């Protein structure tokens, strides 16, 4: 056991002290921060260009004069001197700052579709809808006056309802709807597990391959059992991964906070207000309710399952990848064996994205129990409180499978690391499983 500890220690320290690790660990959050900052900067720096429109108003009661310019969309209406379309067109092409002519014909109120925009510079989609909205506003006012409807009554009528969705408990008490939070949580943690398994599983494979091509492996396994070497490497790299994730999480949070604070307090404020608005529109969720939702999720179960599926999934896949590393001579040869390992991983990610629509459906249930996909798929379901027996079955099967896979990997590894210059086939790998072992 002591030797496994030594191996874990070496695998951990040599990787954590590497320049590439330090750079990636620091650079990772920095990239996130820069990306964030860039997004904010772009949204701020992108000033909408002014779109200046000359209004040709032929209506008797001056409808066109009621148009109000909207500065945030960059639309400016300008009432021209009296004249006809020919004169206006002349002005439009004479003045560089003018982009279009908006024509209100004589009977614009009775026949609104006779109103039109004639442009020199084509309006952007945004300007187009802005202009349209401004014209609609004027028409609306006129119609209200025509039908003698007070503005306040109209506003009342127009108010839209967002049907509140609540969870009703057996006792009859109501709870906020938190399916969005659960979905985000499920997909997020599933994806995190996928990333971890892939990144660090491949690191295990490379490490094994390095020892093999280095020819140090025979020196080491004359002192320790191959299985110990393999497990030491797998565990050491798991720790590297955990370290990196913890640092990334902390630094990312810090970086986003700092960048957000320095770069764009206004933008953040805007975003905050904006999101408050949307939230108010969508269904009136307030901070208290959000806190309630967060409290409503059984975090102990979610976190516990995350750690479990995280580790078990990683152990399962990294042992298979270790076996692959041992079976080949060069990284280019790993391709043929990589497919059966990477396919179920990628597949489970796709499945987990889709089962969110029906987290208790037959496919979701099956793939969250099937061991090769369960780490990711079950993790995506876990926030939706799947039946306990399914979780238990999924966990039990996963444990059995990773025991089996480490056993198999250990045997392939043991034989493979000492085979030089020979490309293994699947048939050979099966044979290696049954070579006699040391007592």
């Amino acid at each position, binding site marked *: 056991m002591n030797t496994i500890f030594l191996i874990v220690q070496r695998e951990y320290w040599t990787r954590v002290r590497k320049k590439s690790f330090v750079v990636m660990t620091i650079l990772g959050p920095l990239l996130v921060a820069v990306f964030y900052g860039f997004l904010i900067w772009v949204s701020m720096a992108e000033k909408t260009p002014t779109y200046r429109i000359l209004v040709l108003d032929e209506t008797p009661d001056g409808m066109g004069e009621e148009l109000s310019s909207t500065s945030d969309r960059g639309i400016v209406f300008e009432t021209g001197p009296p004249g006809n379309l020919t004169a206006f067109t002349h002005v439009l092409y004479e003045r560089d700052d003018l982009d279009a002519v908006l024509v209100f014909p004589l009977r614009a109120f009775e026949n609104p579709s006779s109103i039109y925009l004639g442009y020199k510079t084509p309006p952007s989609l945004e300007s187009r809808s802005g202009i349209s909205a401004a014209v609609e506003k004027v028409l609306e006012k006129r119609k209200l006056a025509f039908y003698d409807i007070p503005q306040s009554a109209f506003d009342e009528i127009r108010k839209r309802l967002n049907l509140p969705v609540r969870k009703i408990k057996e006792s009859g008490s109501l709870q906020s709807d938190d399916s969005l939070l659960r979905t985000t949580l499920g997909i997020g943690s599933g994806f995190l597990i996928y990333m971890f398994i892939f990144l660090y599983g491949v690191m295990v494979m490379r490490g094994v391959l390095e020892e093999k091509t280095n020819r140090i492996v025979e020196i080491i396994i004359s*002192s320790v059992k191959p299985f110990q070497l393999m497990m030491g490497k797998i565990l050491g790299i798991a720790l590297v991964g955990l370290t990196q994730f913890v640092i990334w999480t902390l630094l990312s949070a810090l970086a986003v906070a700092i960048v957000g604070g320095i770069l764009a307090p206004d933008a953040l404020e805007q975003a905050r207000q904006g999101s408050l608005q949307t939230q108010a529109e969508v269904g009136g969720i307030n901070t208290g309710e959000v806190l309630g939702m967060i409290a409503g999720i059984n975090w102990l179960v979610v976190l516990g399952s995350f750690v479990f599926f995280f580790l078990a999934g990683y152990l399962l896949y990294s042992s298979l990848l270790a076996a692959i590393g041992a079976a080949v001579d060069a990284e280019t040869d790993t391709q043929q064996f990589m497919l059966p390992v990477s396919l179920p991983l990628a597949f489970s990610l796709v499945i987990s994205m889709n089962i969110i629509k029906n987290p208790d459906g037959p496919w979701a249930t099956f793939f969250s129990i099937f061991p090769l996909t369960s780490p990711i798929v079950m993790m995506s379901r876990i926030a939706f409180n799947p039946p306990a027996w399914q979780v238990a079955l999924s966990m039990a099967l996963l444990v059995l499978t990773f025991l089996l896979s480490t056993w198999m990997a250990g045997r392939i590894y043991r034989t493979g690391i000492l085979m030089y210059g020979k490309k293994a086939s699947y048939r050979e790998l099966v044979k290696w499983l049954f070579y006699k072992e040391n007592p």
Partner: protein
Amino acid sequence: METTLAIDIRGLTKRYSAHTALNDVSIEVPQGQIFGLLGPNGAGKTSLIRIINQITAPDSGQVLLFGSPLAPVHISRIGYLPEERGLYRKMKVGEQALYLARLKGLSTAEAKSRLKLWFERFDLNPWWNKKVEELSKGMQQKVQFIVTVLHQPDVLILDEPFSGFDPVNAALIRDEIIRLRNEGTTILLSTHRMESVEELCHSIALLHKSKVYLSGSLSDIKNRFRKNEYRVVLEMPESEFNARAKTLNQTFSPTKLEYARSFAEMEFHLPESSSVKATLNELLKLGNLVEFRELLPGMDRIFVETVTESPKE
């Protein structure tokens, strides 16, 4: 006198799917000797060594180490320098040596103090904090040798220990091997360099086609392969040599007869029927006899002869 056997290999058989690596191999390695393990490529040497190191297990047969069957406790009593050997390239030399020593069960302090001595002896001290990839191949080999012997094993298994060394460093390693033997270490030396075998080994075993073809002490084996060939050097003037050359050719039918700077050299085969004494008397009459010795076959020749004359399967 019964000597204790350091390694007692009994009826070892190891099969792989396609071929048999070892076929009923029995070898006895006495304690405190340098024992040569010879054989052409693919004869089964590496398989045998890996079994002794408990890296792989035999299908049948047994290996006793100092009288008891191989067990995990023996791992720390063996030092193994594999033929295919390397180090972590990106790791620092000292750190790596420490790691490998600790894997063998040495404490950090003990390993450090011993490494200091060895690094001193091999002039490696300035390299302690360098990465392995900065070292020359010879220096890496030195580090590997140190790591192999650092835990003071009772049995050393060296597979081609001289490969990659220049003559100076090869001599350094050879001296260390001799010193370790003198201190009581049993050394199993696997090599293709027959001059090293002649120089260092007391006994040998020759593996060929998964079987032991030859084994025993070097002198016994040489005796077994002696061909009654002799070498003679006679001092005589050239005129006399020219006069006697014909007689010499007729009497001895030599494989070699040369004259150079007043010495006549002759190598010949002595038939079993004739006595050495009579031949010697005859030679004494011919001139001033300065050398007369039996030509014992070199290991080189014994090796080639054994391997090429073995029955085809």
